[in-house]
């Protein structure tokens, strides 16, 4: 339902042209959980930005539900890689933002904000301003801000990157529980291969910049999955090793 057809994105800087995404063709099925992995700076964020309507592809088209999309699409939620909580709003006011836009009654907003802030473990920090939260807490608040309005498709860019290992596992579990219930379509960027394998139906491996698709690996571990259990399991580890092999050459290029 989210189709990238021959999508390229080129940036013009003052000195040169940078090709960030190079002729990517990819179909993401409805209600699937897709993870993107690839070397840093390869163009994953750029691809998400294009899907969200924040950058225009230089060539190719992006279709949603078969429709050619121009501009923004309300059905796609986006948890960006950069910090975008509004500093003048408390955590709870940030999380409730989307519901406010839908003009829901105050009581319902409060009730849902409460629920989602508990979900990400920020129940007791509702009245704190972003500057009073830790980096990881701000990430979680940003997640709750998007999850709360349950968009049909959710793009997430390294959402758990700043969290410690335990918290990460617990957030993965919350995310999977949520997803089992509402079955949104999820595109999830991560550098953590085990995380990708634990969560995804498909893992898309990108080459180093410009991003081309190197491989699409289907993960058919049974669902529902429990991250605590399978994270260190043999199956996950062996798939990780497979993915790692694919990535290794690419990473070598990046570092040089």
């Amino acid at each position: 339902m989210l189709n990238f057809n021959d999508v390229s994105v080129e940036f013009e800087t003052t000195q040169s042209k940078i090709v960030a995404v190079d002729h990517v063709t990819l179909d993401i099925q409805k209600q699937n959980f897709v993870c993107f992995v690839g070397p840093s700076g390869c163009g994953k964020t750029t691809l998400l930005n294009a899907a969200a309507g924040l950058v225009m592809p230089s060539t190719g088209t992006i279709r949603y539900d078969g429709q050619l999309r121009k501009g923004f699409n309300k059905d796609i939620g986006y948890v960006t890689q950069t910090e975008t909580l509004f500093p003048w709003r408390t955590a709870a006011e940030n999380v409730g933002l989307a519901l406010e836009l839908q003009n829901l009654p105050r009581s319902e907003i409060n009730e849902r904000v409460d629920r989602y802030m508990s979900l990400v473990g920020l129940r007791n920090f509702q009245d704190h301003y972003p500057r009073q939260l830790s980096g990881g807490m701000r990430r979680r608040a940003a997640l709750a801000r998007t999850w709360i309005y349950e968009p049909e498709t959710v793009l997430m860019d390294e959402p758990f990157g700043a969290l410690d290992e335990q918290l990460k596992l617990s957030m993965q579990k919350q995310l999977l529980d949520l997803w089992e219930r509402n079955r949104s379509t999820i595109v999830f960027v991560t550098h953590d291969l085990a995380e990708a394998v634990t969560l995804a139906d498909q893992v898309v491996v990108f080459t180093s910049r410009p991003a081309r698709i190197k491989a699409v690996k289907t993960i058919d571990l049974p669902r529902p999955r429990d991250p605590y259990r399978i994270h260190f399991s043999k199956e996950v580890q062996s798939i990780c090793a497979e993915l790692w092999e694919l990535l290794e050459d690419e990473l070598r290029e990046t570092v040089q």
Partner: protein
Amino acid sequence: MNNGNAASESAVFDSERSKPVRERPLLSPAVVVNLLRVGFFVASILLWQYVLSPALDPFYISSPSRIAVRLYEWATDGVLLPDFIYTMESTFIGYAFGCGAGVACGFLVGRIKLLGDVLDPFFDALNSLPRVALGPLFTLWLGIDLAPKVLMVASLVFFVVMSNTRAGVRDVNPDYVNVLRIMGADEKTILWKVVLPSAAVWIYASLQVALPWALIGAVIGEMIASDRGMGYQILHAGGVLDSTGIFAGLVILMIVGLALTHLIRLLEQYSQRWRPQGR
């Protein structure tokens, strides 16, 4: 390897977080500052009263005691009350119009790129006009009553507020705007929920800066052509070589200016309480 970006992102903001709690010193810094302020004030007054006035000539620089007596006389007989009210009227009306128009125009030119590109040089040109020199023109158009003074005040206030609002609106973080766009917000919602709150710091700053300009505009307007007002009275006192009268008039304007500035600052502190304190 897996969290470089987000982690460094948050470190950038750490400097903006509140300071950790620490043991309080005996005298808090605020108390020390206030004591020093009072000390400085008293010292300046004493210097004026007992050194400068006798050394120079009270005829030229008056003295605090004479000014105090004059203020007391004015307060008890109330002769100056109509003038005071008259000046305040043009100050407030002009300030309100100037700020309102300034904020509105600042939003328009700041937010609509084409409009800004076209109009910016014209605003800059108008702003570089010495408004005082337009005074006679205002009088010609609007007579010598309140209207030309209101216009004078508004014309001074407008540009201060407009240019700050415009800068604030252009400074809005596009990432914040995109958050709302992605949620499907329309332009009006974006204006209310992102542009206004993030430009608010700039606007408050300009409201403070504009306040003295409002008083200047009112007084100058009265000095150009008027038969009433504090500016007129100060001019008149000058005409009869009454330095005490000039100073007493200035003291009143200064107190009004201080009080209003403080009021705006309180308003700002309340609405900007999300910011770290003690900037």
